[in-house]
């Protein structure tokens, strides 16, 4: 990470030398031209042209930007004019070749886009400089100086803005992942309940969906936050469950697990158990394909996943301690209540945001699940029954796989929405990326352009990762066409 920050920090001077930007542009252009050309197979003339372009730009590197563009252009056109041999039609002139014309259009478009980006970047830099606004990424190494009330990595006021970024990012990811998990479970339950023949269950699900998705999310967040705050005991009091889990206005307090030095064995055993269960399932399936004999691979796998880590855990002497939150009942008024940094504190801002996000998103997921199940025609069930499948396997092997195909794409959408909606956190002081980085850090440093760009890239990245995972899953369960 440090290396990355260093590298980013060294950008400003690099950028302020406008000459270097020109070179950057030229190289970008070159890369584009070459990429376009390379993607076009079977045209020897174009390879010659590409060579021209390379030579032109390498020459231009030692001259000026204008020369680079000029030579690059001439080289591209010259490349096109080189008589070329079409695999089927022999020699044809380039302007009668639709592929050549398409290529020219692409090159022109690429040049325009590159120039647009180039103009914006330089213009921004020049404007910031003219307005005397600090720029660059050096601020990432400066001391932040403010406190944050939920940090998944060690963080103090002496940490840097780079670290506030990580703190915010992890907080966003945390609420998004747990939120997606809860919303999916709740959404599936409500979606199935919505199809129930039981009138009461059906109507409850119906009203849940109608009410939840018609109330704006921000209102959900406020209602949960202030409802939670008003309902629970104050700081110097608590509700306890088994004297282990506690709740008050400062959140949920629970024992914090402190893994001992040998705890990694348990983790390894757990991972190994998953792999074993997976292989077992594969083998069992192959055997079933071959011989028709079934094997309860799910239950056996589950047993392995539970028993193996437990065995490792006890064999290494139970290397896990718990630190209980310390509750102070006497003494100075502000020291009473749970002591900060003792045990595990789940702040009420997180709880409220999580509840609001999952309950709201679950309403949409429920509709998606309902649509998915309804999309599988009843004939499929009848056909499965006719083949002698019982209702369990019918559901598991026939209905659900087909329903999932309809459910996954819109479900991905909801996951993306939930992640992006988590940025409403700032309204109730949950320290997510937008609150601590695009909020506090932006304001304290004043470097809006850099910070907004970074923040947008992060959300883009999170969305792309989510989509990639879901698309992978989707293609795995997709209908295999033969």
């Amino acid at each position, binding site marked *: 990470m440090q290396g990355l920050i260093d590298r980013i920090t060294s950008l400003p001077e690099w950028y302020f030398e406008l000459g270097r930007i020109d070179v950057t542009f030229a190289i970008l252009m070159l890369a584009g031209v070459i990429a376009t050309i390379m993607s076009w197979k079977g045209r020897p003339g174009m390879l010659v042209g590409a060579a021209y372009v390379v030579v032109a730009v390498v020459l231009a590197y030692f001259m000026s930007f204008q020369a680079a563009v000029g030579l690059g252009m001439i080289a591209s056109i010259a490349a096109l004019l080189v008589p070329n041999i079409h695999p089927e039609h022999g020699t044809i002139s380039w302007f009668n070749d639709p592929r050549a014309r398409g290529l020219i259009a692409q090159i022109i478009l690429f040049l325009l886009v590159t120039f647009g980006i180039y103009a914006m970047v330089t213009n921004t830099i020049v404007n910031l400089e003219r307005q005397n*606004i600090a720029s660059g990424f050096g601020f990432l190494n400066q001391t932040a100086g403010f406190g944050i009330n939920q940090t998944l990595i060690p963080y103090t006021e002496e940490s840097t803005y780079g670290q506030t970024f990580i703190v915010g990012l992890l907080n966003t990811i945390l609420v998004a992942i747990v939120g997606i998990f809860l919303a999916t479970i709740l959404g599936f339950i409500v979606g199935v309940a919505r199809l129930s023949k039981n009138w009461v269950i059906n109507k409850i699900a119906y009203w849940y969906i109608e009410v939840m998705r018609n109330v704006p999310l921000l209102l959900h967040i406020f209602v949960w936050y202030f409802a939670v705050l008003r309902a629970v005991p104050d700081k110097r009091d608590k509700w306890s469950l088994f004297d282990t889990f506690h709740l008050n206005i400062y959140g949920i307090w629970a024992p914090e697990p402190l893994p001992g030095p040998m705890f990694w064995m348990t983790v390894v055993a757990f991972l190994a158990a998953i792999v074993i269960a997976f292989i077992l399932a594969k083998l069992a399936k192959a055997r079933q394909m071959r011989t028709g004999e079934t094997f309860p691979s799910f239950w056996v796998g589950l047993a392995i996943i539970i028993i193996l880590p437990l065995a490792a855990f006890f064999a290494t002497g139970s290397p896990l301690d718990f630190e209980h939150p310390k509750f102070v009942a006497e003494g100075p008024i502000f020291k009473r209540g749970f002591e900060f940094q003792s045990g595990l504190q789940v702040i009420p801002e997180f709880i409220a945001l999580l509840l609001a996000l999952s309950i709201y998103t679950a309403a949409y997921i429920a509709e998606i699940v309902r649509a998915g199940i309804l999309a599988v025609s009843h004939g499929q069930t009848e056909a499965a029954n006719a083949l002698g499948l019982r209702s369990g396997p019918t559901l598991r092997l026939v209905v659900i796989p087909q329903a999932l195909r309809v459910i996954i794409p819109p479900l991905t959408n909801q996951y993306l929405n939930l992640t992006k909606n988590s940025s409403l956190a700032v309204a109730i002081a949950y320290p997510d990326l937008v609150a601590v980085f695009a*909020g506090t850090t*932006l304001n304290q440093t004043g470097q809006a352009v850099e910070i907004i760009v970074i923040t947008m890239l992060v959300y883009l990245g999170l969305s792309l990762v989510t989509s990639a995972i879901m698309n992978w899953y989707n293609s795995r369960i997709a209908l295999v066409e033969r």
Partner: protein
Amino acid sequence: MKVLSRVALGALVAAGFATSASAATLDDIKKKGHVQCGVSQGLPGFSNTDDSGKWTGIDVDLCRAVAAAVFGDATKVKFTPLSAKERFTALQSGEVDILSRNTTWTMGRDTALGLNFAGVNYYDGQGFMVPKKLNVKSALELGGASVCTNTGTTTELNVADYFRSNNMKYEVVAFEKADEVVAAYDAGRCDVYTTDRSGLAAQRLKLSKADDHVVLPEIISKEPLGPVVRQGDDQWFNIVKWTHFAMVNAEEMGVSKANHAEMMKSANPGIKRLLGTEGDFGSKLGLGNDWASSVISQVGNYGEVYEANVGPNTPLKLARGSNALWTKGGLQYAPPVR
């Protein structure tokens, strides 16, 4: 995804092309016919809308005074409510011409943001408010407290410094909007509410039982609050700076909204220069010679504005203290009109 990338592009375009920090803010303002003034989202006494939706407060009056100086008409001003977080970006991007929003003058803001502070219209310091029932006498007893405050403020940094240097544990809960800070403090999420002491006096009025809360005696920071403009336009900077000075000078010379008509006939050379019956100081600002005269006849002098908005007879009940004139032992001091 497509939408996201489009938004990204839009932001870049905005950053790249939409810099309206042209040198001649005054010309632009004259062309559009009003001053665009950035204020808070509602801080009684400083910038707040009354029941009829009219903006009132000491920060608001400063903007009115600038409009009076420019147009001879204090009503030619429009207000943009801004959160602490948004304010500097709004000024930098040209969304507002002047930021008058209880904003602390700090070195960082003055030098790194491309902005200039044009004066101090309220000398303040940061304080703490706690529920009376906790029976706390000093801020040094606050170890272990959780503290509610606004994001994007000097407050957030001062409180960290204070607790750290006094070796006290704390938890900070930082909201974007002041109303949510009030609501969370009121609900008991925090033991302590911290911000500028003037802000505490104002926000206290929004609590369900204002009298159940006290402001502790400690002042943990210097918070000189004042109007801000963009760097690079000295004329506009001068206009805002001297509008404030004119109001302070007027108080010092005893010129007020009430006696303005009489004072126009005054033989005192200092008053004559201020009100423009002698000399041509207005033209050096690019304004009419009656610029300060309009400010005082339409808005009033500094003391009048103070008393009407935050003084002892208002709900905020703030004594003049550091904001008294230098002749009365305070810090308000203006260079002479000469």
